[in-house]
């Protein structure tokens, strides 16, 4: 069917991890677990094998900020699609943060993290590099309890 052609394994991994999260909110552990199983399968079997290339990453993120998200905003406004507008508003801001972090990392390398911890807001994806967890997310205003600390060692 058309979905299958439209979405590769990388997309399917995210579709199912998102559905798993929503089943969890419906307090349906059984469904959530099975959806997670599918997500993990697609994640593990993804064919895309591109290594970390900071310049390529910066360029892709920049295009999201300058054109891809603005396109969603433009179309979202025309169709009065509040969901798409919210997604684009937050996504663009978080991507701008990604761009800034990557740019700083190019100069400072690991020094960027010295004496700091790294936190990610589970609600919008905002990345904070600071000694303490932020009191509220500057982008989506989620409280500190919504932040996950990223571990330093693999």
């Amino acid at each position: 069917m058309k979905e299958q052609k439209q979405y590769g394994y990388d997309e399917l991994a995210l579709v199912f991890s998102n559905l798993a999260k929503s089943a969890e909110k419906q307090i349906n552990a059984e469904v959530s677990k099975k959806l997670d199983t599918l997500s993990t399968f697609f994640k593990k079997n993804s064919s895309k094998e591109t290594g970390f290339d900071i310049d390529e990453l910066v360029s892709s993120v920049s295009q999201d900020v300058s054109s891809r998200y603005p396109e969603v905003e433009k179309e979202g406004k025309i169709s009065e699609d509040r969901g798409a507008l919210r997604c684009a508003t937050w996504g663009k801001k978080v991507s701008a943060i990604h761009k800034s972090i990557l740019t700083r990392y190019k100069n400072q390398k690991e020094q960027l993290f010295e004496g700091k911890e790294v936190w990610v807001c589970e609600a919008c994806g905002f990345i904070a590099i600071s000694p303490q967890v932020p009191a509220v997310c500057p982008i989506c205003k989620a409280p500190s309890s919504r932040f996950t600390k990223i571990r330093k060692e693999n």
Partner: protein
Amino acid sequence: MYAVRNSSLCTKDCLCLFVCPTGATDTETGQIDASKCLDGCRLCVDACPSHAISLMVTSFPERKEKSSEVSSSLQEVFHSKTGQLAMVRQQQSLLERALYHSLQILGEDCAREEGFMIAQDRKSIELLQSLLECEDPDLPKDTIRELLDLLS
């Protein structure tokens, strides 16, 4: 509608036990017995001081279709984000791990806006059904069939 308890919010004040007319909240499993719950009663929902209980609908409203322009602009972002995820997938450094975690959230947000909001939705069901025809021999099709059963 039936009541469900979010165990991570429950503070065991047990007001739900006192107010429930049927004893549906009085279980050993930590969850409310949906078969005893009176459709839409919500006494426990209003009584719980920790806002740990909510009512779950049994049938979900129809999702509003996106315009094709919104949908294709979202898909562009979706593909871009999965491409970026592939670049940091190995998660070899703190930076890559942070980006991976964050991009995962942005990608899921695209998936949600693409219409994959809940598993009960027609679009999710159709995706699951179409995957049954997928030729990858390793795909856990039993899991897909079990899911389709649970969701029907």
